[in-house]
């Protein structure tokens, strides 16, 4: 069963064999998990958002018009679920990151920090401080390595708007991670 193509698995699930949906989950969970973790900044939140996304995908499976392209269709659901999850959480918590002393250190890193590679934790913390749209655009472009055309299809935003978001994200990340040179 695990060897079946996506379209075959989807046909079987729509035929009533719901268990086979687990093969699709197993096949794509890691691919989506990285995106969700980078966007939400928390492995646990990413886990919850992904689970909700996969269940949403199951409920909407009949609307997947091109089952052979399930991965892209499902990724769109993941992106939307992460947006919803992030907005809900922001309302709930009003993002407490500004009170994190480590972030203050990031805003003006020491020379020692400059000379070494950043840890994933430091970069993630800086990423968390970006505006949601900028964070999403940066992750899609430079982490998931999508083209701007693919990003536009996925997010519904225009290519020029996405380029601007990525540019702003890079500038902001630089501010957070590097000392601005005085020339």
């Amino acid at each position, binding site marked *: 069963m695990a060897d079946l193509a996506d379209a075959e698995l989807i046909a079987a699930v729509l035929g009533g064999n*719901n268990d086979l949906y687990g093969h699709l989950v197993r096949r794509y*969970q890691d691919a989506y*998990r*990285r995106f969700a973790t980078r966007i939400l900044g928390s492995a646990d939140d990413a886990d919850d958002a992904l*689970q909700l996304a996969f*269940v949403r995908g199951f409920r909407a499976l009949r609307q997947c018009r091109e089952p052979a392209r399930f991965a892209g269709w499902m990724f769109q659901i993941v992106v939307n679920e992460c947006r919803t999850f992030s907005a809900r959480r922001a309302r709930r918590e009003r993002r407490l990151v500004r009170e994190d002393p480590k972030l203050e250190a990031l805003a003006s890193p020491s020379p020692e920090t400059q000379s070494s590679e950043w840890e994933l934790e430091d970069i993630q913390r800086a990423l968390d401080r970006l505006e949601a749209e900028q964070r999403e655009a940066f992750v899609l472009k430079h982490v998931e390595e999508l083209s701007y055309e693919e990003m536009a299809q996925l997010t519904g935003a225009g290519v020029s708007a996405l380029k601007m978001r990525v540019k702003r994200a890079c500038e902001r990340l630089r501010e957070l991670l590097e000392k601005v040179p005085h020339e």
Partner: protein
Amino acid sequence: MSDANDRDDLFIERVAKPLRATERADETFVARVLSAVHAAARESESSAAPRQSWWRRRRTLSFSPAAALAMAAALVITVVGLSMIVARDDRLASVAATPAKPDTVHLVRFVFADSSARAVILVGTFNSWTKGATSLSHDAAHGVWAISIALPPGRHEYAFVVRDSSGERWVADPFAARVRDEFGTESSIVSVGGRT
């Protein structure tokens, strides 16, 4: 200009490379999704005869007397009902072994005993199998993890996600009836209010 672009590319690569590290799901993820999927399928099947959600209705909160909290040793999990009745105005009214009314919700206590656990999470049909919803509290005095939650009458599937030094694992209740999915993952069943 070219130098500036090169610097930008270098900066982006320094930032993006660590972010491209793979993130892996724990072993319980597929089981949780699949359990939630089964619940969604059942919900979809029953939606042909729509009725008001249990949590919207006025209700009596009934803690029907249950057998004593049977606490077995080692890895033991029990589901125990409590016993009290709360009137419709939410005041404690009386304590009695009154049969539950149709719109009753029951307080069900889930207990998990494992001395090596660092955290225990309850997942089930009642919380969409999400890990962020229902964590058990550690009762150091009795050496168990426990939580009480209100459930409507009916059949509920559940399992525990246990975090310890080796990671996370999925544990079904050894003392409850079980269901098994395509991948061999077992979940437990609790029937509340005499309904299945």
